[in-house]
């Protein structure tokens, strides 16, 4: 979204998002962009969206609207434009434009041998000297011009710092820096190159030509100079004006003009991240006009070094931030894969065990047939081995299905599909389903349904999974305990408008330190049996129903999990009750407002 950032004025530091087709700006409270500036009119200007672009229009304000220092009536804005209204200075940031141009074609880096330009270094300055831009002036220059320049430089640096600190988009940031440089330095062409992390090769990212110059023109940069800048971490000012004895300087200059360039390293906190290059040409005519052959001086070089440093810091921040996010993501994916592989491996082991038993049964049977010794006893024995194996295979098939369902539930951003359902029936089904598992673990499973349970709106499929996971956990908690007991009860509170499912076990209990970790994904205290997905999935489902899971636990005594969610009664006309009458032949005759239950 396009935005305005107040660089100067009473609202300094405020960012306004330009949301909507028309956004008004002024001192009055009715404006979306309200500026506390007495020199801004009540209704000063408005922004209008025109296609992809944003246009600012002055609403006959008393003090006028200025874009990049020029008074305007109406003007299309570009990213990086500065608006002056009264005493307030604002920075406009548009939406990121897709950059289609392939810069590699537009900028040449020439090696030493093929340097046609013949530029050489006139001045070089260590990166650290860039900070001297604000240092004391030389003794002979204590008068006000220096002070004015220093102040203006300070402002440039301040604005650079502001500009770079408000974006995480590197391309946009570089474009803005280039634009600012062009505002302050009288350059003809410029480009910013960034070092590629893997290869260390400098890749052009942004280029700019002063308007009026043909933009198709290629920028030629000497590899020698780039190497010098990067390797020695020094900014350089080059000129191809030759004061070398071997050439007739005057003649050469008059024929070709002079090309001056500044190339500075972008030194960040840790490394040189790239270079900024600008250059300018002086035609013979202009040289004569201004009576000098130099356009760039050391002051420019200092300023450029300081700007490049600011930009580099911002780029490093952005890159490291992105890398950190990426690294975290990779670590999380790695953990997920490791955890899932472990469970799948165990399930596979179970399947292998089961199928090996089946294979044994088949072999035994085949052997008996071959030896012509098939009797009821041997056949029964073979079948019982196969049955045992088959039971194990089936159990593991159930496990993989649970794992997949939990993964799906956990990964999907899904909205629950509420249907009028009966919580007692739902839980009763689950208890029935879990009876076999409970008796296998010698755990008594007790079902205490609420005496009255109205039809409620919830997603029965999701709730089934949520309750099933908690009951499974409760049974597992009683594993290896004598007299293991799991009590499942439901409750409907008319007064609180809440429905609850409570699952109480007398198992091992949860360590107090672990209580806040149990809902974390892939954290399981069940050794090889838990996937670490059950509780997070249940919690997610309850949260989707605007409910929650409460846990109370005492070590050695057991735990109580209470799942509660708002009890919403089905509306008689809602679609939730439709399945009750669907299939009825006289469905047309049922009045929409009649109550079915």
């Amino acid at each position, binding site marked *: 979204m396009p935005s305005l950032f107040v660089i100067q004025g009473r609202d300094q530091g405020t960012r306004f998002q330009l949301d909507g087709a028309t956004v008004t700006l002024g001192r009055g409270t009715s404006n979306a962009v309200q500026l506390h500036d007495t020199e801004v009119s009540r209704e000063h200007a408005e922004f209008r969206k025109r296609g992809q672009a944003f246009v600012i229009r002055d609403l006959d304000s008393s003090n006028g609207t200025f874009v990049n220092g020029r008074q305007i009536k109406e003007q299309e804005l570009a990213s990086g434009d500065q608006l002056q209204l009264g005493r307030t200075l604002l920075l406009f940031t548009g939406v990121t434009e897709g950059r289609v141009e392939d810069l590699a074609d537009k900028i040449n880096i020439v090696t030493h041998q093929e340097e046609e330009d013949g530029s050489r270094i006139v001045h070089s300055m260590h990166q650290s000297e860039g900070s001297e831009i604000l240092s004391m002036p030389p003794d002979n220059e204590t008068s006000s011009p220096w002070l004015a320049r220093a102040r203006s430089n300070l402002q440039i640096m301040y604005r650079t710092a502001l500009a770079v600190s408000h974006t995480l988009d590197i391309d946009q940031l570089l474009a803005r820096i280039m634009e600012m440089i062009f505002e302050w330095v009288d350059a003809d062409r410029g480009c910013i190159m960034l070092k590629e992390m893997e290869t260390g090769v400098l890749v052009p990212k942004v280029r700019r030509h002063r308007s009026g110059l043909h933009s198709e023109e290629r920028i030629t940069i000497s590899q020698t100079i780039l190497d010098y800048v990067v390797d020695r971490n020094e900014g350089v000012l080059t000129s191809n004006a030759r004061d070398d004895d071997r050439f007739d300087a005057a003649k050469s200059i008059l024929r070709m003009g002079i090309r001056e360039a500044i190339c500075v390293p972008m030194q960040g906190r840790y490394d040189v991240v790239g270079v900024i290059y600008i250059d300018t040409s002086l035609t013979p005519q202009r040289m004569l006009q201004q009576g000098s052959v130099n356009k760039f001086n050391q002051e420019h070089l200092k300023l450029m070094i300081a700007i490049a440093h600011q930009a580099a810091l911002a780029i490093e921040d952005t890159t490291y931030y992105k890398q950190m996010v990426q690294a975290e993501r990779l670590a999380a994916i790695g953990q997920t894969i490791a955890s899932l592989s*472990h469970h799948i*491996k*165990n399930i596979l082991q179970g399947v292998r*065990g089961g199928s*090996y038993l089946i294979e044994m049964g088949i072999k035994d049977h085949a052997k008996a047939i071959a030896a012509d010794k098939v009797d009821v006893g041997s056949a029964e024995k073979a079948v019982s081995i196969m049955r045992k194996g088959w039971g*194990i295979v089936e159990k593991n098939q159930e496990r993989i299905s649970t794992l997949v369902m939990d993964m799906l539930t956990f990964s999907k951003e899904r909205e629950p599909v509420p249907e009028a359902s009966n919580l007692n029936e739902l839980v009763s089904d689950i208890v029935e389903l879990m009876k076999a598992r409970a008796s296998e673990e010698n755990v008594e499973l007790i079902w205490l349904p609420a005496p009255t349970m109205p039809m409620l709106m919830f997603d029965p499929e999701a709730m089934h999974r949520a309750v099933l996971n908690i009951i499974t956990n409760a049974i597992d908690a009683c594993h*290896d305990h004598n007299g293991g007991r799991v009590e499942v009860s439901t409750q409907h509170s008319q007064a609180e408008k809440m429905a609850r499912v409570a699952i109480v076990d007398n198992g091992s209990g949860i360590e107090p330190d672990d209580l806040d970790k149990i809902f974390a994904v892939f954290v399981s205290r069940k*050794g*090889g049996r838990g996937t670490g997905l059950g509780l997070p999935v249940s919690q997610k489902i309850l949260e989707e129903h605007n409910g929650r899971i409460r846990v109370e636990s005492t070590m050695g005594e057991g735990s109580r999990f209470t799942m509660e969610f708002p009890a919403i009664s089905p509306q008689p006309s809602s679609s939730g009750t439709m399945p009750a009458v669907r299939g009825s032949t006289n469905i047309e005759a049922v009045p929409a407002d009649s109550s079915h239950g």
Partner: protein
Amino acid sequence: MNIAPSVLIVDASRERREVLRFLLERRGAKTLEAARPEDAIRLAREEHPDLIVFDAESDDSGSGDPSNDLREIADGNHTPIVILGKVRQLRNHFSAEQIVAKPYHYGPLIRKINSLLAAA
């Protein structure tokens, strides 16, 4: 061999213990079972099994690695030990013959157990 050899099965999964018990009993071995390494260490000391089969991956709840404790007892008793899983972590402490990667196939595992029991 006159008396039936005894094998200690250490695995947190009852299902896997059951499969292995069935297969070992089929070939005439007696089995001892332990779900937890602590119980296994006790059983190994008291019962002197002829072989220990230990699933090193099934129990990750305890602190430290119990496989070394178990091996010390096994070494003291001159009992062969077969470790299931954790190939990479245990490679330096056990010989390649002692470790079987998971998921394993039962056929080769049983053959390995047979040959170790025959050698003992």
